[in-house]
């Protein structure tokens, strides 16, 4: 009997090992190399702005819709207030580069071939996006992507930009 309890406890411990970042939690900081350029970009550089961290990959079919649509999203808000960091999770960066040639982006695309940042965020699905406020706290999380999801994102970004930085 005690053996069974021990096994159950071990199973639970294994299941809970990867904890996910939920809204309300501080976003884990990261530093990654962009596809365009050599200087690494970190989330901390964007403190004071509203940031959309989006996880994508060339093999993720909803990403074929989301990445081009994010170009419009970035254009809707001033660069001084809002930034998009698109974290590419392709193991082979050539796949990601080919994808970016096919779907050019007007925001920062970063490479995370080992998935370290995805691990830190505890991704539950692909694609996943996290909206982070000026103080670095996750305020909104979205898993999956449909073109109409962009409207909800716009609403959330507008609300977060309207909040003064000091309020947090």
């Amino acid at each position, binding site marked *: 009997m005690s*053996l069974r309890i*021990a*096994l159950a406890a*071990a*199973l639970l411990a*294994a*299941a809970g*090992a*990867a904890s996910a970042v939920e809204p309300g939690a501080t976003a884990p900081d990261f530093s990654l190399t962009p596809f365009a350029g050599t200087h690494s970009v970190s989330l901390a550089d964007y403190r004071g702005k509203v940031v959309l961290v989006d*996880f994508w*990959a*060339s*093999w*993720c079919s909803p990403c074929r819709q989301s990445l081009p649509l994010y170009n419009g999203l970035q254009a809707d808000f001033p660069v001084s207030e809002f930034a998009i960091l698109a974290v590419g*999770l*392709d*193991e*082979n960066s050539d*796949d990601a580069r080919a994808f970016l040639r096919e779907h050019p982006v007007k925001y920062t695309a970063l490479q995370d071939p080992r*998935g370290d940042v*995805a*691990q830190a965020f505890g*991704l*539950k*699905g*692909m694609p*996943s996006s996290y909206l982070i406020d000026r103080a670095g706290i996750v305020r909104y999380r979205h898993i999956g992507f449909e073109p109409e999801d962009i409207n909800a994102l716009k609403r959330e970004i507008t609300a977060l930009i309207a909040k003064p930085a000091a309020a947090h």
Partner: protein
Amino acid sequence: MRSNAKSRRSSPSQPLRTKRALRWLLALIALVCLGGCAMQAVQPWQRGRLARWDMRWDPDPLQAAMNQHAYFSKEGTSGEIGAAGGGCGCN
């Protein structure tokens, strides 16, 4: 008499000790095996290879549709793929 009982309690017989040791060994092996399960979980961002076209159950949808059509035409009387058969074989 008393000292006898005491010595029996403090040092169990050889087969009993072996049995206990075996039980612990089994528990240890089970725990190690469980750890192996935890390591193998494929994370959402690690599905690049699984998402490849040639990793599909049916890589060619047209070929799969034709195979299925031939199959359910032949097996119509026996209920084909899951559904109960009407017996007419008229697909």
